[in-house]
């Protein structure tokens, strides 16, 4: 089937709100190329479980496209329409299973050397859409906080090198009570600007107690979910005919209920957490990867005003000789390696935050937990500068947000 053959009944299996939006925009969908439309449907089919900001983005995208005159719409999608897709892709159930279609389409584009053209078309489309979107003013400037290096007192190499170029490096921070101060500040922002999913606390270990005003995700709380998922993966791998691509497809279809999350009571957050494990690579194994990827996805999807992430030591990767010796050391951690992981992850946190609307006003603070080093990037602070001021975390935070 091609998009021009679509009719309302094709969306009967969609969740109610997604179905309603799809039917409203059927005429638009009929004009879009097959190389593009499933990407839009992949987002739309999840509409009922999306964060508020994501819903607005989908509605805006549909509205912008619907308002384009036909010649302009054709111009926007010319590069997508020029891609040559296999007939077999047309025969797939791309309306009901857009994510699976995209996997197949991606493999086909790579194998036919059209991936670069697709990429160019996608970037161009994204730029056009971005410039057409209205940009609402934010209730407060964004703030990112990364706390790294839990359990370490030394570092083999200087920290924050990538971030120091963009902000001020503080070498004499007073660490006492730092974690509590930063958590309290995050909660205070949530209280001052009570917006759903606008204030996040992500922990790579066990979370500190916080108010319900924060959207909290932690590695240790999700241990039962991880265990269920790993068990599911092992079962699937043992099935005849199972390969990596088939496994990915199976994982993409997993629901929170299948992983024992039905009692959590927050469909959007539950789905988000499932996807962290089913779509992320390494998130099931390493807590540092989990915290980094969750941060990235929270920023990309929920566009929070505040995001505090605290990294915890991940499990130690055994070298080959230890594996061969079969030494049993369950739960052994690697704080030093985790510090290196989190140092890079903090840089990615800032990069991903700066991709969001309002980047010019946003601030970022990274602190080596329990130690004296931190970097603050803020519109008011100089770059590539080292400060020896003996500041508390509270004072540092004031500098970041002041």
């Amino acid at each position, binding site marked *: 089937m091609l998009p021009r053959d679509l009719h309302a009944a094709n969306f009967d299996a969609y969740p109610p709100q997604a179905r309603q939006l799809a039917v409203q925009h059927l005429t638009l969908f009929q004009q879009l190329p097959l190389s593009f439309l499933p990407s839009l449907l992949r987002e739309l089919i999840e509409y009922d479980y999306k964060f508020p900001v994501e819903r607005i983005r989908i509605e805006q995208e549909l509205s912008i496209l619907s308002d384009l005159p036909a010649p302009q719409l054709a111009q926007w999608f010319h590069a997508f329409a020029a891609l040559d897709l296999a007939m077999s892709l047309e025969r797939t159930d791309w309306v009901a299973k857009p994510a699976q279609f995209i996997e197949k389409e991606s493999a086909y584009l790579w194998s036919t050397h059209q991936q*670069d053209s697709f990429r160019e078309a996608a970037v161009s489309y994204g730029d056009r859409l971005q410039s057409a979107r209205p940009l609402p003013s934010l209730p407060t400037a964004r703030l990112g906080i990364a706390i790294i290096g839990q359990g370490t007192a030394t570092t083999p190499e200087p920290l924050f090198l990538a971030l120091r170029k963009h902000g001020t490096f503080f070498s004499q921070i007073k660490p006492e009570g730092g974690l509590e101060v930063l958590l309290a500040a995050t909660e205070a922002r949530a209280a001052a600007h009570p917006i759903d999913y606008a204030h996040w606390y992500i922990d790579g270990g066990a979370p500190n107690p916080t108010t319900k005003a924060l959207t909290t995700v932690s590695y240790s709380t999700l241990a039962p979910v991880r265990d269920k998922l790993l068990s599911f993966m092992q079962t699937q791998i043992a099935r005849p005919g199972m390969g990596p691509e088939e496994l990915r497809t199976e994982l993409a279809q997993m629901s929170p209920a299948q992983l024992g999350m039905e009692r959590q009571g927050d469909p959007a957050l539950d789905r988000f957490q499932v996807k962290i494990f089913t779509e992320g690579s390494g998130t099931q194994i390493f807590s540092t990867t989990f915290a980094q990827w969750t941060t990235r996805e929270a920023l990309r999807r929920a566009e929070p005003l505040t995001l505090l992430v605290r990294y915890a030591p991940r499990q130690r990767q055994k*070298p080959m000789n230890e594996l061969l010796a079969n030494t049993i050391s369950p739960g052994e951690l690697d704080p030093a390696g985790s510090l290196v992981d989190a140092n890079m992850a903090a840089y990615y946190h800032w990069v991903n935050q700066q991709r969001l609307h309002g980047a010019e006003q946003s601030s970022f603070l990274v602190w080596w937990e329990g130690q004296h080093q931190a970097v603050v990037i803020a519109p008011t602070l100089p770059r590539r500068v080292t400060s020896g001021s003996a500041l508390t975390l509270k004072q540092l935070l004031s500098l970041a947000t002041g």
Partner: protein
Amino acid sequence: MASFISDRSSSAQLRSLAPREIARHFGRTRRDFLRDAAGMALGGALVSASPLVRAAGVIKKRKIIVITFGGGARDQETFAPEGRVNIPHMLGELAPQSSFFTQVTNHGILGHYVATASLATGVYETLNNFSAVPPDHPTLFEYFRKDLGRPISDAWVVAPSNGFNRIGESDSRSYGAGFGARVILPKHLLSAASSGTKADYAHLLHDNYETPLYAPQISGGEFELQQLEKVLKLSVDDFTQHAKSLASPDELSVYIARQLMRQESPSLLWITMHDIDIAHSGAFSLYIDAIRRTDRLCAALWQAVQQEPEYAGNTTLLILPDFGRDADEDAGGNGFQHHRTGDPASRTTWMMALGQGVRPGVVYDSPVQSIDLVPTIGAMMDFNAAQSQGRPIRELL
């Protein structure tokens, strides 16, 4: 967004460039870094005076060793000022002896098996990256053995995982069966040698860091256990004992390669490293550890070449990643973790050539493609890579 871009002038410049221009930018950056860090000269005018001309008389005895990294390493972790700490051996020992190509582009599929197969055939292969299937086009091993009438013992592949077990021989009708290279899969060998023991190798034997829980079963073409003693002259006990002293699968691969060099002295030896691809787990420290290990292993192998009478003085070593990894700035990726975006950073890498017939200490930033490797080796060894779609790299001829 504006402040982010203005903070990062190089990123801003990159965004305004077309992909080919960005690839050239990467090349120039590597060149400038090498000129400063390793004191290497810019090539170009030197091309017509290749030392290979002087080496023509020893063409029959020439050996070629290719090392590919399955799981590319990015510039900022290697050939850039902030990455130099990770590659002391390549930068300080190997690069000054090498002709260094700063701009090697891979226009094919960025999966490790299919990309390595493309390197070995000189054609951008389109096979399923996660299946143990042979390449569609003849490999350099087939060209080499058929054209030059070389025995099977003269071409070997040491490869990281089960998925690579068919890489030695293609499906091509005019070449294919009987003309390929022998393939050793060290991890598979270790698994076989250790069967019946209580050791848990499941983690070690993970086949592919892109899908860490999946390990395809293999059949046919693999190096049989009994040949451990016959070819490598290693007892199962000695082999497993030595393996217990090694930190990673790539160390095991280099150990096997050295045994092969001693016992078989193949003229064409291909080693694919894979430790760096641990980056897919998202743990930056493990990725860096793997780069440092690979750096050390490359130098160790070059030292082994100097120590082996069959190789010293007549061997050309070619080192290249199969491709790069995603740039930090590409919103579609997650930085070093993957190579999924197809952005210029993930497609552009480098190649180092050193030893017999190579002009040392020269940097070339003229663009080459990864599929140029096979016809280049063909020209070096005097076989015709007839179906390759690449072109010989004239700076090496």
